[in-house]
């Protein structure tokens, strides 16, 4: 069956919701970051799909920028996680609630 | 007018404030003298202005108009007419007397006088500005000094009442700002005179015009305490230092009244007329309700504060009766009430300094120790209850006269009669207060109380003389006010 734009979008949606579930459900900070990466990839797919089926390259340009941001985000995210780990001996998100009221 | 009199008058106190701030050796004596000097200067100028004022002209005089924010079409537009002249004079006078009253202040004297003078500048500015934005600016200037004066030099729950005052006033001025902006966006200009001529009522459509009217009115109703919005006044007054409550009661309440005439009624005559009955009812409520609650008060200053709510009720009654005589009566009432309440507060403050007691039930029999105080206090009290021969009577009588004959508002007669009933209540609590405070056997613990000093007697007598003068020969003010009111009532025909 020919592969249309919808397929890619639905694929990206599936991926996104899996990532979303992971980000919201998991207790280990690193896993959360991984899931966020999945979500970003899902978005990338959608972007590229649009650029492919829309003949405009901006989709891909955006994908690149998303990658850049994703990279930056992971770097800082993991730095944070490690810094928190160093000071609190845990990466369990439920125990990192310093901002609690 | 080549010489910018108004700007000088407005910024003279500010100059004084700056001078005080920069005084090298900060001993209290020097500060007080400089303060007195500057306020006296502006008073003299105000009086000179009063006599230079051309009584036959209707419009604004001593006009100064300089482009201020061109894109917004807002001008630094000053000018006084019949309405604002007496109030400016009153402000200058009370400003000077406030300085005299605070001759005994010892705590942080320099800041005290800086704020006092800034306050006076703000109020002068309000009365002289004919540009809405400038008006609002000066209107806001007085909030900070008031807050600081009450919360630092005040007594009792001073922080609470200072905060309450600021929140109330800010609420009012916020809505007022909304009104001004709405008005500006539709009329395109901030110039009050022009706005009044435009006759915006029909142009804006009833809903929007009423919205703007009430937004503005709300701001002034907070300032001139109209019934539901008055609870800040007693707190602010009782906890403010004497001089501040003199100025607060003396002039700042009149800003509300002045605003109503100059902006609400002048710009939206029709709406003012349609909603007059509602507002008059509120006025009556504040008259009777104010008087009623005054009976219950035990603290002297609080009693005087509540009485000023009742008196300001007459102003609103007079204003919204929308007749020539009633509005002039209301303006006269504003001036006379300013003098009377200013004097009363000064004396109450004085009494407190002498006896350190404000609870009426514990006071008593002071007449023997303080003959001058008794005389002046009684005169002020009697003027407050509207004894003929004092300015109180002249103003209230004109208000009743005007509103009785006014054809603008249906059923005004009944409202006015209820208003007149207020006179009886006023007489009631004033005399009861005099009796409990001064008459009766002299109490032991007030044995050594000294009578009013030379300075206090001086300004008390000045005020008494003024009250008497206006009472006996009100024409010196009414002619001026009359010319000021004419253009405002033109649309009513």
């Amino acid at each position, binding site marked *: 069956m020919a592969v249309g734009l919808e397929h890619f979008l639905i694929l990206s949606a599936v991926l996104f919701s899996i990532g979303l579930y992971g980000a919201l459900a998991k207790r280990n900070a690193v896993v959360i970051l991984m899931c966020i990466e999945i979500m970003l990839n899902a978005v990338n797919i959608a972007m590229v799909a649009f650029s492919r089926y829309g003949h405009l390259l901006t989709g891909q340009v955006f994908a690149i920028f998303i990658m850049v941001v994703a990279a930056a985000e992971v770097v800082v995210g993991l730095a944070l996680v490690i810094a928190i780990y160093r000071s609190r001996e845990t990466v369990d998100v439920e125990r990192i609630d310093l901002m*609690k009221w | 007018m080549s010489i910018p009199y108004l700007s000088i008058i407005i910024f003279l106190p500010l100059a004084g404030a700056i001078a005080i701030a920069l005084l090298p050796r900060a001993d209290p004596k020097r500060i007080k003298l400089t303060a007195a000097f500057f306020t006296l200067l502006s008073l003299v100028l105000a009086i000179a202005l009063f006599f230079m004022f051309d009584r036959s002209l209707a419009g604004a005089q001593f006009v100064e108009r300089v482009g201020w924010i061109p894109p917004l079409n807002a001008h630094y537009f000053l000018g006084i007419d019949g309405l604002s002249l007496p109030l400016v004079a009153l402000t200058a006078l009370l400003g000077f007397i406030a300085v005299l009253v605070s001759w005994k202040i010892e705590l942080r004297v320099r800041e005290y006088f800086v704020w006092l003078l800034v306050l006076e500048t703000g109020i002068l500015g309000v009365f002289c500005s004919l540009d809405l934005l400038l008006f609002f600016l000066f209107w806001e200037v007085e909030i900070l000094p008031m807050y600081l004066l009450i919360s630092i030099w005040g007594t009792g729950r001073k922080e609470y009442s200072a905060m309450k005052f600021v929140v109330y006033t800010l609420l009012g001025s916020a809505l007022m700002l909304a009104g001004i902006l709405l008005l500006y966006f539709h009329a395109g200009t901030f110039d009050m005179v022009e706005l009044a001529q435009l006759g915006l009522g029909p142009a804006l459509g009833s809903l929007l015009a009423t919205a703007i009217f009430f937004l503005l009115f709300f701001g002034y109703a907070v300032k001139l305490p109209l019934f539901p919005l008055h609870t800040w006044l007693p707190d602010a007054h009782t906890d403010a230092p004497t001089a501040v409550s003199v100025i607060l009661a003396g002039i700042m309440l009149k800003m509300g009244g002045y605003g109503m005439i100059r902006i609400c009624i002048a710009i939206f005559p029709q709406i003012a007329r349609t909603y007059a009955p509602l507002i008059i009812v509120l006025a009556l409520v504040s008259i009777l309700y104010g008087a009623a609650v005054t009976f219950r008060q035990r603290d002297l200053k609080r009693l005087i504060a509540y009485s000023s709510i009742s008196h300001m009720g007459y102003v609103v009654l007079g204003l919204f009766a929308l007749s*020539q005589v009633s509005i002039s009566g209301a303006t006269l009432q504003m001036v006379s009430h300013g003098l009377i309440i200013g004097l009363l507060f000064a004396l109450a403050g004085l009494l407190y300094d002498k006896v350190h007691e404000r609870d009426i039930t514990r006071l008593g029999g002071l007449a023997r120790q303080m003959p001058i105080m008794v005389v002046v206090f009684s005169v002020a009290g009697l003027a407050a209850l509207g004894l003929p*021969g004092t300015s109180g009577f002249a103003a209230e009588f004109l208000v009743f006269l005007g509103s009785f004959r006014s054809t603008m508002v249906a059923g005004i007669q009944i409202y006015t009669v209820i208003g007149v009933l207020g006179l009886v209540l006023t007489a009631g609590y004033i005399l009861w207060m005099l009796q409990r405070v001064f008459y009766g056997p002299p109490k032991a613990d007030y044995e050594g109380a000294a009578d009013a000093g030379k300075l206090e007697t001086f300004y008390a007598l000045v005020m008494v003389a003024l009250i008497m003068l206006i009472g006996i020969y009100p024409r010196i003010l009414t002619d001026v006010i009359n010319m000021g009111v004419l253009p405002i009532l033109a649309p009513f025909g």
Partner: protein
Amino acid sequence: MPEVALAIFLLPIFSFVVISLIIRPFLNKRPQLSWYVTIASIGASLILSLWMLVEVIKAPGHVLPMPDYQWLVIGDTSIHLGVMADSLAAVMLIVVTVVSLVVQIYSRGYMHGDPGYCRYFAFMSLFTGSMLGLVLADNLLFLFVFWELVGLCSYLLIGFWFHRPEAARAATKAFIVTRIGDFGFLAAILFLYAKTGTFDIGELQHLALVGAIGGTALTWAAIGIFSGAVGKSAQFPLHTWLPDAMEGPTPVSALIHAATMVAAGVFLVARLFPMIASSYEAIMTVAIIGGFTAIFAATMGMVMNDFKRILAYSTISQLGYMMLGLGVVGVGVARGAVALEVGLALGVAVGIFHLFNHAFFKALLFFGAGSASHATGTFDIREMGGLRKAMPWTFATFLIGSLSIVGIWPLAGFWGKEQILSQAWHYAPILFYLAMITVFMTAFYMFRLLFLAFGGEYRGGAHVSLRESPAVMIVPMVLLAILSVVSGWLPISEFLGGESHSFFGALASPMAWASLLLAALGILLAYAIYSKKWISAESMRRRFAPLYTIVSRKYWFDELYENVFVVRILVDGIFALFHWFDDHIVDGMVNGIAGGTIAAGREIRRLQTGQLQAYGLAIFIGILAIIAFFMIFG
């Protein structure tokens, strides 16, 4: 000519200004000065008013044209102040100036050595000035101004010894009660001005007569004016302040609460008589209230034990008579029984003639009270007695005064009362019978007072050397005694437009005989009980126990007004409610809002669980909600 009129009332005010601004603060060491200034100013006013009287008599129709001055101009409304010199004014001028002069002389002795000496005379001259002003005022506003000033002076003078709490309370009470009356008066003035556009009394009279003012409107205005009169002359509902006003020094009571101020109410009704008379209901209320107050006050007078209180009630009663006189004639006019022109003049004449006489003998009685208390140091008649021997002059003058007030034939009291009674007989028979009973009562309580105070042995506690009052007090009493005899004979009523009456002709009418008989009966009863003690006062009191307690407690009006009405209903009731409302509802709302926001803040804070995922979840639920919203609503 107008300068004279102005001078009459401006002179005493000027003396007030002189005393209060110059003598009091600076020359307080020599207080007598203030007495001289006062005497000079009032003396001058007396001479001028006499001269005015002569002018008025000469003037056609007894009215002198007077110019008026523009006080206030606002837009189309302009307020003029002027002076009105007609027969009524002239007569009143004489009364006020004479009595005031006599009182000043008397009070020199009475007030001797009082620290507030200058203050006393300052207020006295202010009072006299404003009273004269009131009398001369040609328009309602000017009249109202002086009306209030007079009220002020009565307040100041009642509360003269302010260190005595009762005096202070009495002064406040007096002012407030009169103020209630003034409320009606002011409302009436405004009402009239709103209707007619003028304050001028002449114009108003003319418009009222012509019927320009609507029926009900006129009635309301008339009742308003009458309420002012009721307040000032202490008529029925607003009478409670006069007995308490006795706290003031006796000369004050003599001048203000006997002769002049209280009479102002009657003068007001007389001044606006044509207007009030033109509305039947108004004049009927005047008559009824007058009649009722007369008998009502008399009953209370009978049981009082305080020398001055008895005289106070007698004053209220006599004022009731005057109101009655005006009222009945007015009723006659309103009913058309009398020709309009004649009737109006007659009514005024009747009322004012009695006022004229009453001023003199009531002042005399008060002087008697004054000198008696001066000697015995108290006002309680039960502690007096036997003053006849000690103070022969006082006794003699007091006797003349009593006889005159009771209305024995040749004395002044008889003539006025007789006219009132005859008019009452013609137009309001019921009120006539009330009046006759009052005659009997007046006689009874006057002579009860006489016998208790002057008759029998001295019942005073400490053995006080009873000496006759000094000459400076006796001379004015003698003067007044003469006047209380002579004043009846003066052709006052003809001058005011009433009927003339022959000296002896009066005796011809059966009316006179009836009243004389009743008076005699009253005297006899008093003589029986108090002088000869044939019937013990105790037994009388026991037999009429319930009646006696009611009356002796002044029908509980005082309690009713003060405790019940003012304190319980108003101050503790409505005002307390308002106070509570203000503190708790209005202020409560303000603080409530503040408290509310803080509480809300504390609750919402709980949302911050510190867990990232919770926030993430919230974000996405939000997104879903938005998408759903747009999906549904397109």
